[in-house]
Every structure is written in C-alpha cells, then in structure tokens.
C-alpha cells in the first residue's frame, strides 16, 4: 500500500480571463491511509477547485497531485480507479433507478454483472436504501439522494473518497445521517477528503483539518491541535449603533490581561479573550452607551480559530 494516499504539491490554479482569478495559490497537502481529512474554508477559498483537480476534472496551472502514487494529470483514467466522488450537487443518472445507478457504476469499473449485482444489493442494505431500490432518482429527497451518491461513489471500493460540501442543502436530520455514513466509512479503511464551510462538520468528522482561504493553507492539524495552537479563545462580536469614541474602549480592553485582542469592526466591536468569565458584563457595560444592536459569543471552536487566522467569519 502507499503510505500517502493523496499527495498535493504546490498546487496552483489561475483562471485567466478579464478578471484574473487565483483560485489556488500553492496548496500542499498529504493524506494518510484511512484518515478523514477536512478542508475548511469559506465559499470561494479554493476547496472545490482542489477537489476538481484531484479528481481529474480540472487541470492545474502548476503543481502536482498524486492519488495512490498515480499522477492525476498524466494518467487520469488510471487515477480514476482509485477515486470516488460525491459532488456538491445531485448528479445521479436521472434515466436510471436507485439500484441501476449503483449497478451500472460497478459495470463502468469493470465488475462482472454478478459482482455488480451483489455489490449493489450489499450497499443498498448498508445505506438503508433497499426499499427505494426501484425508485426513480427524481423522487428522492435531498438526504436520500445524498446517501445514494455516497453509496455509488464507494461502490468500486476507491482508495480515497472526495466529499464536496456533503451537507449543503441537507436538513439537520439528514446531515446527522450523512455524518453517520461517513463515520461508517472509517471502519472500511477508506481515506476521505471532505470540504465544508461548517466548522461543526469539520470538527466532528475530521481526524485532521486544513483551514484554507484565498487558495492558501493557513493552518493544518487535528481539530484539537488547531484550537490549542491558535488560542482556545472566545470571540465576542458586538454590533453597535454608533462608533464615536470607540477607540477609547478598544484601548481599555486591550490593556486588560484577559483580553487577547480587541478591535473595532465596520459594524461595531470584536473582542477575543481567553475566557468569557467575568468579562461579558464589563464589555456590555462599556458598550451600552454605543447602543448594542446585537451580541454574539463564539465559544472556542474551529470557527474562532478561523476568525483569529483571517479576521473574518466563515460565513462572511
């Protein structure tokens, strides 16, 4: 076996058009056998572009991607044998039933009809889809369609599975079911690379996370390591009616020992602190005269790590 299942080196993608867009600016990533790896970043950070190149659907401007030791640009057809993909949108074959979507996928990967049938039935069982066997894929809910897509993507026993924003458009219940399905893949030893802009998802599922923004890797490590390295901080976000003389408050706060940093934002004030203990009432008191419209407190999480790294919210 290859110790490194996915090896991404100095990956760069530039879209040359009227507005030159640098989607990837030298990404380096290495995925080990059997790990679940999360690519966390806001929309437009370069997550989908990375997946597109790794899955042979897009060509890099520079850099290389090796999947199970195979260069995906030089040998795309061979690399695809090792790749399973669940794209962001439902790309199930609308002309086929649920069963046929998986069955024909197996045939595309060289299974005999008997092997394909056995594998399809086993997967339908595993993903609790057996009752939907003959359903038309147009009639499936978002959550069910996602499950069929995952079952289809792993049907040929790929070495690595790419999940692009797997919970986009799913209701909370379907998201939990999807998480469970991904957890289940761990037992099968499949390496998973998932992209997400939900920090809970990255936190919950991933063994390691890379935080990316503007096509660059900002930080990389286990969720726990990221949270401790980049400060297990609480972030207070205040929206204020007026900003006059806010600088004085910022200075006062910055002078305190329990405050890591305080700064004014376009909408008000952001305070990053070691803990919320005792600080909250004082912040509220100081900010009251500016008219508090809204107050958000983010407990230490990958979200706060992202804010500390970029100064921005994941959803901004």
């Amino acid at each position, binding site marked *: 076996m290859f110790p490194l299942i996915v090896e991404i080196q100095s990956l760069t993608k530039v879209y040359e058009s009227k507005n030159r867009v640098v989607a990837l600016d030298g990404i380096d990533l290495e995925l080990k056998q059997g790990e679940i790896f999360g690519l966390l970043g806001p929309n437009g950070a370069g997550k989908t572009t990375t997946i597109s190149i790794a899955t042979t659907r897009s060509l890099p401007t520079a850099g290389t991607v090796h999947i199970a030791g195979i260069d995906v640009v030089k040998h795309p057809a061979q690399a*695809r*044998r090792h790749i399973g993909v669940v794209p962001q949108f439902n790309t*199930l074959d609308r*002309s086929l039933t649920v069963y046929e979507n998986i069955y*024909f996928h197996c045939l*595309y990967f*060289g299974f005999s009809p008997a092997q394909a049938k056995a*594998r399809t039935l086993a997967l339908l069982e595993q993903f609790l889809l057996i009752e939907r066997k003959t359903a038309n894929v147009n009639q499936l809910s978002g959550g069910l369609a996602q499950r069929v897509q995952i079952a289809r993507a792993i049907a040929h026993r790929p070495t690595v599975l790419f999940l692009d924003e797997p919970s986009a458009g799913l209701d909370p219940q379907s998201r939990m079911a999807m998480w469970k399905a991904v957890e289940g893949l761990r037992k099968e030893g499949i390496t998973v690379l998932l992209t997400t802009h939900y920090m809970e998802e990255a936190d919950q599922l991933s063994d390691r996370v890379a935080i990316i923004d503007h096509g660059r890797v900002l930080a990389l490590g286990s969720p726990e390591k990221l949270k401790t390295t980049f400060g297990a901080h609480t972030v207070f976000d205040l929206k204020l009616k007026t900003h006059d003389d806010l600088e004085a408050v910022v200075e006062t706060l910055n002078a305190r020992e329990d405050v890591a940093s305080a700064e004014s934002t376009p909408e008000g004030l952001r305070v990053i602190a070691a803990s919320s203990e005792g600080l909250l009432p004082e912040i509220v008191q100081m900010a009251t005269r500016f008219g508090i419209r809204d107050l958000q407190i983010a407990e230490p999480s990958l979200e706060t790590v992202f804010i500390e790294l970029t100064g921005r919210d994941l959803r901004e």
Partner: protein
Amino acid sequence: MSSHQDSAIRQAGPSLYLKSFLGLFARDLSVLRREIIPFLLRVGMQPLLFLFVFTFILPRMGSGNPMATGGTDFGTVILPGLMAVAIMFSGIAAVALPLSSEFGITREIDDRVMCPLPLWAVALEKVCFSAMQSIVAALLVIPMAYFIPAHPVKADWHLWPLLALVLVLSSLLAGSLGLVIGSKVNSRHIGLVFSIIVVPITFLGCVYYPWAMLDKIRWLQIAVLFNPIVYMSEGLRAAVTPGIPHMPWWAILVALVFFTAALGRLGLRGFLNRVVS
C-alpha cells in the same frame, strides 16, 4: 467479495477499458429498452408520413394533379434519401439532445466521465451507441418503402457490402455531428439548432433528388458538396438504387470518412472542453 476478486477488478489496461466501455454501452441499452416505443415512433413517423403522402396519396390523385410531380419512380428516388434522413435525425437525437441536457443543470454525465476510461473513449461510446440507433432507424425505412408506395420501389440488394459500409460510415458521421452539437450548443438553444442547421442540411442534402440532377443549378450543385448529408444520400443511392444517377462510390466513401473524422475531432474537442476545465 474476496480481496482476490478485488485486485482482479483493479487490473489496469485495455481489458478494464473494454469492460468499462461495455458498461457504458449496457447503460445506454438499458435506457433505450425502456423507451423503445418512443424511439420507434421518433424514427418511424417521418419516413412513414413522407412515403404515405408523396408515394401513396399524391400518385392516386391522378395525372391532372399538378402536385403528382414525383412520377412513378419517386419512391425509388427517395428510399435512399429517407434512409439518410433517418440516420441523421437519429444520430442527433441520440447524442446531441441527451448530451446537452446531461451537460446542463443536472451534470448527470459526471458519473460516466469519472469511470476509469480515457475521456475520448467515453465520447466514442456515445457516437457508437448513436450509430447503432441510426442503423436500426435506416433499416426500418426499407419495409415501409415496400408496403406503402402505390407503385413498387425498385431496390437492388446485390451491393450489400457497399450498403453495410455506407450505413456504418453514415451513422458514425451522424453521431459525430450530434457530438459537435451536443457539446457546443447550450441546451436552451438546441431547438433553434434543429431549425437553422438540421432542417436546412436535410432539405439540401440531395434527399429528394439525385445530386446529378442539380446540374441545371450549377452553383447549388457545388455548394451542397460541403453538406455531409449529400454523401449519405448518394452513398445509399449507389448501394440500394444503383440504376439512379449517383456519385462514384469511391468519392462518396472518401467524403464520408473525411466528414466523420473532421466532425469527430471537433466534437471530441468540444466534449473535452465541457468535461475538463
């Protein structure tokens, strides 16, 4: 499944490519089988009505009818032409229409382009499958041409090797044209393409008259040489109704091969552009 079988599945090279190709073909066959009635109606309706109106109704209207111009042999003249039209329409319907929607919002093509096969082979499978449908469509015209016309059609089946060759080449050509249209045209404009490309090249494709008889309109006779349908009609004419004037068979074969290669190349480039960004 044992790990031994697993590693057998992972075998690389031509044998996996072939299995993968056949898998794509099996998928298309299964979809077609489910839609066999719509398929037969789609390919059969036009030649059926055409033969019925022009070779059954009009000749019965008598000699006083100014529209009964085709003469008694009109059925013989248009049999090859109608086969060419059937090939053409079937090729476009089997490749261009599904491709343009699969490339569209649903991106249904994704799973098939992710199979362990070079992308040119995925496109080739589309063209081959469409060619098979085109051949069926062309053969369906033959029994109609025997039973419908008021005056019997005089076809000659001795040149069947030429017929087989022209049928296969024409069908691949139609599939290649379908690939060009399907990969280059936005699905919203696909109806327009029928009106501004498919219909004109069909009407000016020497379907309803032999190319030799265009000699009275010299400029048109030369202009239509750029129309690939002309060589389909003329090729089938040379093979099925050799008694009617037609181009030399070797020139037809050269032109069919040329157009298939040119359109195939263009279509493949369009396909790759749509699949890989």
